[in-house]
């Protein structure tokens, strides 16, 4: 797996800008501030990140999507089950505590938040790379963190020891709820997109 340090740095900056936009969309969707606590982009060791996730014993709800276009990749929004219920109340503009147990509306809320975040990322990347990037319909999973994460990286872990992963952690203001957003860009299309981005930037600066 190869990606230059320079490209990694460009990607890190683009992801941070994209996540600012995604965070605003997230907050507007739930009419509640979703604050970014962490954004990092790095080549990570699959066994280490898997162990970290396996040590998180919380039951989670996650929405997994693919991004398709000039840059391909996978995205996942993941939140603890109790947080998903709170998110459902925010989204449906219900009194806090209305949602009591996981049902189709909880699933739909996580699905829609995943869709909104993926769309915001797609919109930012599309603006940066000058091409169209579209999310696919989401797949929603309810399981332990390690199991869900295993499904996200299943294909990549077949052939690689490391994956390029961007991880964002949000905290919902005035709550104890934290939630996560992961992006796994496809390296081949990423390199092509970053090359084009670099060339376009060089041309602009002439």
């Amino acid at each position, binding site marked *: 797996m190869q990606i230059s340090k320079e490209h990694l740095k460009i990607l890190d900056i683009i992801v941070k800008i994209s996540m600012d936009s995604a965070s605003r969309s997230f907050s507007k969707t739930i009419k509640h501030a979703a604050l970014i606590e962490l954004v990092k982009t790095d080549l990570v060791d699959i066994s280490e990140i898997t162990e970290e996730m396996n040590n998180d014993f919380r039951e989670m709800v996650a929405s997994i999507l693919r991004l398709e276009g000039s840059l391909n990749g996978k995205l996942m929004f993941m939140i603890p089950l109790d947080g998903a219920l709170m998110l459902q109340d925010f989204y*449906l503009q219900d009194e806090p505590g209305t949602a009591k147990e996981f049902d*189709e509306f909880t699933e*739909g809320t996580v699905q*829609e938040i995943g869709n909104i975040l993926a*769309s915001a990322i*797609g919109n930012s990347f*599309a603006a940066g790379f000058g091409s169209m*990037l*579209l999310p696919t319909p989401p797949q929603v999973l309810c399981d332990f963190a390690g199991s869900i994460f295993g499904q996200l990286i299943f294909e990549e872990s077949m052939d690689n020891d490391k994956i390029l992963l961007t991880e964002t952690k949000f905290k919902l203001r005035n709550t104890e709820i934290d939630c996560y957003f992961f992006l796994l860009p496809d390296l081949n299309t990423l390199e092509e997109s970053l090359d084009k981005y670099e060339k376009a930037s060089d041309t602009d600066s002439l």
Partner: protein
Amino acid sequence: MNRVLIVDDASVVRLLIKKVLKQGDFEIVGEAVNGVDALAKYKELKPDIVTMDITMPEADGIQATKDIIAFDPNAKIVMLSGIDQKEMLWQAIKAGASSYIVKPFENDRILSTLHDVINGK
């Protein structure tokens, strides 16, 4: 009352749109969960206006809009999507959409857009 068909694969989004439209003079006559369902429900219910998601399984919102317009060239369809990209907007307009709202939306924006489209503005 203006009769509305809501098309979105997420039940929670359909529920939210219903809540918002009930604040205006709209009657929800039906819901569809994908593009194929949207055309069938449109033919059956003949709504005054349709709210249409884009990213859906089976047939997406762009295909469903083309299919509905082929059946009824005067159909009024408002796209509701998180995708804010020029090319997608252009595809929606070419398919026959009357308007396009980017999610997340303000409640007033949906109400005013649907009124404008129904009134031919």
